[in-house]
């Protein structure tokens, strides 16, 4: 393993930029992601920054079952994120559609059909601590030795 890779591993483990996209939920999960910013959970002490800008993101939090407007836009956003990248599904909606996966719905869950999902956090909505631990456990798996794995 090269020294350069070691440095990259060390830096990336304390610098995770997060963007979240709501593709049609009740926004209960949105506000639980926002609650992670609160000093009680203090997401930034783990080196996670919530910017909501896909172009500088490492982790994309996908919230909600997919509404027709988002079918193509979600793929666009996923392509805009630079490598290495990872998507985490927050809540029941992106996994199964939750209460919206019924007769008469306009949504087309799950999100897995549109972009690759690395981790899922079930719950309606999940607690902020669960969201936090999901980001912390999935991000190192993707970023560790990323360049060496590519070769």
């Amino acid at each position: 393993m090269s020294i350069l890779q070691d440095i990259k591993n060390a830096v990336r483990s304390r610098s995770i930029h997060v963007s979240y996209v709501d593709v049609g939920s009740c926004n209960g999960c949105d506000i639980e992601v926002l609650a992670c910013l609160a000093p009680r959970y203090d997401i930034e002490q783990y080196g996670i920054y919530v910017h909501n800008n896909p172009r500088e993101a490492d982790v994309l939090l996908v919230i909600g079952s997919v509404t027709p407007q988002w079918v193509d836009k979600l793929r666009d956003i996923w392509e805009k994120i630079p490598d290495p990248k990872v998507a985490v599904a927050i809540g029941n909606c992106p996994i199964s559609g939750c209460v919206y996966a019924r007769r008469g719905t306009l949504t087309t869950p799950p999100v897995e059909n549109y972009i690759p999902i690395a981790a899922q956090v079930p719950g309606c909505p999940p607690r902020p601590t669960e969201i936090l631990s999901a980001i912390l456990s999935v991000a190192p798996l993707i970023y560790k030795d990323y360049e060496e794995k590519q070769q």
Partner: protein
Amino acid sequence: MKKTVDVSIPLGPVHPCWKEPVRLKCETAGERVLRTEVELGYMKKGIERIMRGRPWQEVMFLAERVCGICSVVHNMVFIETMEEISEIAVPPRAAYLRVIVNELDRIASHILANFSYCYTIEHETLAMYLLNTRETVLDNLERLTGSRINTAYMIPGGVRFDLLPEDAAAMLADLAKVEDEMRRYTGIFETGPLIALRSKGIGVMSREEAIRSHTVGPTARASGVEDSDLRLRHPTYRELGFTQITRTEGDNFARVMVRFQEVFQSIDLIRKCVDNLPDGPIRGGGLCKAGSTSYAGEAPRGELTYTITTDDYGRVVDIAIRTPSIMNIEACAHSMIRDAASIADVTSTFISSDPCIACNER
């Protein structure tokens, strides 16, 4: 919109300031923003279509998933509509407990709205203070109902859980702490010179415009529309001696201050409820019958109306929901953001009207 100016700047649907996806299309001349148009439709899930033909036991849980921020009031208005159709009486203790949970939810929602505003004008310290205070409020909501966001606390003829005396004491202690902190933060907001520069006299909506565009809730009350709070007509709130808060400035500062003041008012209401909590059962029971009615309640963002038709088996045959944000967002785009000085004022003015897109599109 007819294109009359040189540049068109789109904001959103993914934007650092927006909690939910919405697109604002701005018509600009240099730095000035002349007009804006709101483009909705990113969150349309068709929840009213899902609700139709289902028993009320299922629609109850769907109703609170219309909006995650104000889920309690959606639950409350749906249940009170069903009670009005079926002529179910609520025990007095349950009616008081409903007010407690509804006001806790309102405090959480108002603090979140003010957090968003402070975050948008880049006063991150105050925003984080507010978000931390909100966690204390959510703790109390969780202690009483068992859940932070989607509580499903109310059922026809009563509520699910009773308030234990030790929980009531803990709630009052927490509320004293919240009130103390909120007084400090309100002082910071009221007296901050840079906050005043970003907020006072920006996004002004006059009383006439507010009435003409049918704005509701804190947005209308900040513009001086009297008698626009539906809690004035709710029997339990009338018992508690509720009075409406009105400001006359109609700018961003007034809208945020109305929400700050309503937090203190809600804390007082909860104290009154806990002190005068009547004894007795919390569930009266009852049978949901056929009928049709329209019923409105006051959500944190304004008037929320449910129009429901049910059949003999308690199934919801037809339902229409009118949520407060739709009027506020349109009024914001047409009346408040007119000839704004810069794009930064557009985002802060839009957030100050507390838009809830999930409510809006359902």
